[in-house]
């Protein structure tokens, strides 16, 4: 998000789910779309069926590879080198959109100079992608307009994730693929309401609508609305909170609907931190590996038991409606927080229904200004939707970028923080299965889904399996510098030689014990997609 905020001025998906089918070319990089965003995956495949060119850039032989015109199998963590090389080819071939660059963008000359020292030989060396494939992909992307780029956590979860995103933004600006149907830079958000949680200001540096907590005018605005001076220092990001707890700085934690013991990198560290808290209150619909460590556990309700809204990956705010009564004595999460606040004698938490909360959101959040439950009865609205007459926005940056001019960012390739060596010779990369979801708190309760994917499998290339004398179904111990987990083995050429893949759905094989907590310095995203491991037969 930080990458797009720097270059475009807004971190959200520029175009829409349906709009993908209008693309003449799709570049899917770091997104296993058919497994993790299945319905958008339908759109991509349907587009290909109707003549759209598809370039897949992924170290793994994902489902989309079968539909791709070109498959770039880059080494994990080499995306910046790959994207810069593609950019270089487009410029050298004169396939860039000079008019768009001149009218809509800035910093192009500096950017262009920075490409002088890029050569395809070193790109081939770093990425493992043959140079003719890089050239072919560059030409295909540049010559088939409009072109859309889809990406997901395979791009962002790196110690240089922000650079990856900016490299994508550079490529789109270079070819004028912004602000029109079928084009764009489209980060596919992983969780149902991760877009909404960001929009609402569940972030350490911004209030709702990305209004900076450090901006005096914003502080003034919220003081007038809430009657309280906002704290002005940027807060801690989730990954930093655990360090602060272990350093004794943070002593109390209120956690809602998350399971960091399974989802966060270096899980042993997270567990140790949570056990160190003086007071830890967790709110969830199930007991899970994280809530087990709490002093108080509050039962929230599932989405089916409450009213509200979710904002999907394409910025579409849609209704969540109460379909059944809360289970047992559980309570809607908004109500629980309001009740705690009221008991702490706070004003401004006496809401009787979520529609009233939305009214306050609309009042204080320019991009949500025109959104109300009354309007949502007629269907979802895509932000920005600033006024009650505004129809919502399908495509961002049509006339100008959110920040004015799109900013080209010179970049330098940086390798992943941890590379294979003699002790840990394999790269581990992680992701999700279609049949499970995140830490499995919900999906593993579904008997049918467990039949499709019921336990962790380390996906390993046949060459590596042969060298390690492994066969399908063997149990192995996967060891990194941070810990070890055991899991079954699945031999598949979906993994390239030297790279193994695991999901993080299963508490019995908590993959994130292995992963590297090193952070991207800007977005503070951990490098979940690349760490070094070795595999031992159990």
């Amino acid at each position, binding site marked *: 998000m930080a990458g797009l905020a720097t270059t475009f001025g807004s971190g959200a998906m520029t175009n829409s789910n*349906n709009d993908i089918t209008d693309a003449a070319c799709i570049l899917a990089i770091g997104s296993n779309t058919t497994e993790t965003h299945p319905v958008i995956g339908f759109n991509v495949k349907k587009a290909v069926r109707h003549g759209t060119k598809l370039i897949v850039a992924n170290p793994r032989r994902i489902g989309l590879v079968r539909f791709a015109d070109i498959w770039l199998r880059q080494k994990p963590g080499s995306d910046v080198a790959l994207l810069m090389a593609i950019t270089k080819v487009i410029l050298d071939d004169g396939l860039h959109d000079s008019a768009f660059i001149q009218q809509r963008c800035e910093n192009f000359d500096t950017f262009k100079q920075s490409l002088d020292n890029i050569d395809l030989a070193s790109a081939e060396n770093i990425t493992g992608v043959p140079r003719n494939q890089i050239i072919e992909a560059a030409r295909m992307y540049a010559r088939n307009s409009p072109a859309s780029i889809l990406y997901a956590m395979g791009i962002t979860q790196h110690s240089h994730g922000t650079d990856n995103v900016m490299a994508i933004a550079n490529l789109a600006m270079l070819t004028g693929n912004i602000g029109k149907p079928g084009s764009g830079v489209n980060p596919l958000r992983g969780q149902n309401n991760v877009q909404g949680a960001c929009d609402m200001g569940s972030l350490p540096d911004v209030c709702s609508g990305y209004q900076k907590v450090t901006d005096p005018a914003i502080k003034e605005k919220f003081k007038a609305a809430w009657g309280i001076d906002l704290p002005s220092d940027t807060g801690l990001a989730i990954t930093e909170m655990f360090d602060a707890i272990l350093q004794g700085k943070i002593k109390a934690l209120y956690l*809602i609907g998350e399971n960091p013991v399974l989802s966060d990198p270096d899980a042993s560290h997270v567990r140790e931190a949570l056990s160190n808290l003086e007071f830890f209150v967790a709110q969830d619909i199930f007991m899970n590996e994280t809530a087990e460590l709490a002093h108080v556990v509050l039962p929230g309700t599932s989405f089916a038991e409450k009213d509200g809204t979710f904002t999907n990956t394409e910025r579409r705010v849609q209704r969540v409606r109460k379909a*059944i009564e809360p289970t047992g004595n559980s309570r809607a999460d908004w109500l629980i927080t309001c009740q705690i606040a009221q008991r702490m004698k706070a004003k401004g938490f006496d809401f009787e229904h979520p529609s009233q*909360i939305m009214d*306050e959101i609309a009042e204080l959040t320019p991009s949500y200004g025109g959104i109300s439950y009354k309007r949502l009865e007629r269907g979802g609205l895509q932000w920005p939707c600033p006024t009650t007459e505004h129809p919502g926005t399908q495509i961002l940056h049509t006339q100008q970028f959110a920040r004015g001019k799109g900013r080209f960012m010179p970049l330098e390739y940086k390798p992943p923080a941890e590379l294979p060596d003699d002790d840990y010779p394999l790269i581990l990369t992680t992701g999700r299965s279609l049949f499970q979801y995140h830490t499995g708190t919900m999906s593993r309760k579904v008997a*049918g889904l467990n039949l499709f994917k019921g336990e962790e499998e380390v996906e390993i290339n046949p060459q590596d399996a042969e060298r390690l004398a492994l066969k399908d179904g063997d149990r192995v111990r996967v060891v990194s510098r941070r810990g070890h987990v055991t899991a079954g083995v699945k031999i598949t050429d979906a993994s390239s030689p030297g790279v193994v893949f695991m999901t993080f759905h299963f508490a019995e094989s908590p993959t994130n014990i292995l992963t590297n907590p090193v952070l991207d310095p800007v977005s503070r995203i951990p490098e979940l997609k690349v760490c070094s491991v070795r595999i031992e037969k159990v």
Partner: protein
Amino acid sequence: MLKLIINGRQVTAKNGMTVLQAAQEAGIYIPTLCADPDLEPHGGCRLCIVEVEGMRDMPTACTTTVSDGMVVNTETEAVNKARRTVIDLLISDHPMDCLTCVKNQRCELQEVAAYLGITERHLPMTITERPVDDSNPFFTLDHNYCILCQRCTRTCDEVTVVNAVEIINRGYDSKVSTFGDKPLMESICKSCGECVVRCPVAALVPKNNIIPTSEVETTCPYCGVGCMMHLGIRDDKIISVKGSRNSQANNGRLCVKGRYGIADFVHHPQRLTEPLIRKNNVLQEANWDEALDIVTEKLSGYSCDQIAVIASAKCTNEENYIVQKFARTVLGTNNIDHCARL
């Protein structure tokens, strides 16, 4: 806009529309068993045949595009006679257990047969019992009810582009099957159930086939696509899920988790139903007053830089808004984040 005449009535239609679409838009019923708004025209079931002045034979309305001045008759004796023959052939190998069939009153074959006034079987039953593919945990493929309309195979090709099912064999041996004629569970089927939704008869049916008393439109809680869905409710339980066509996020489509992965977790016996408080190092059930009192008292006891809040990408916008407002105004800290980065 084009003008045409259907059954003596003037009807307007957009260029490129089929006769079937133009008639449906004008509220004129033409029976069909293979047409579906999401699928390419197929012309397979032959039930939508009509007469068009100046055209030979009886073209299928679903594959004939409209032209200006076209004169169409959908209800001539010749047309209905031919349609009745199609139904006679279809039901010659279709079970007649309608009253106890899971699709009773929701079966399109039943609907079309009733429209055409079919009251008895004219041809002898030709086929013996066929095996049922029960391998998938969410739905059943029962070849005995299949009328080979190919909506399922076309859905798997055109809508989801998975291509797990196809028609194999020829003539009486034709059937919907997978590569190598393996059970669905051993195929590349992703269990999205889009074929099940479009099956006009009881060939592809969900295993849980209770009819809801009411439906509520809401948004899926799994990934970020934001598919809207109708939850079917009966006795305060979710018993079915249907994709909503009202949302442009998904246009009616769902994946396996959205369609089949909701009720089991919402109604799971391990759901937390009471607040829990740690006493003697064990989490024990407590009442809300007791739990909220402890939370309030404890949280009040720390300075603002000693507290942090982790909100949730699973919770609603309203909940996230309230939580960050709580962190910033009540606890006095910007130490609030959620799993956006994970």
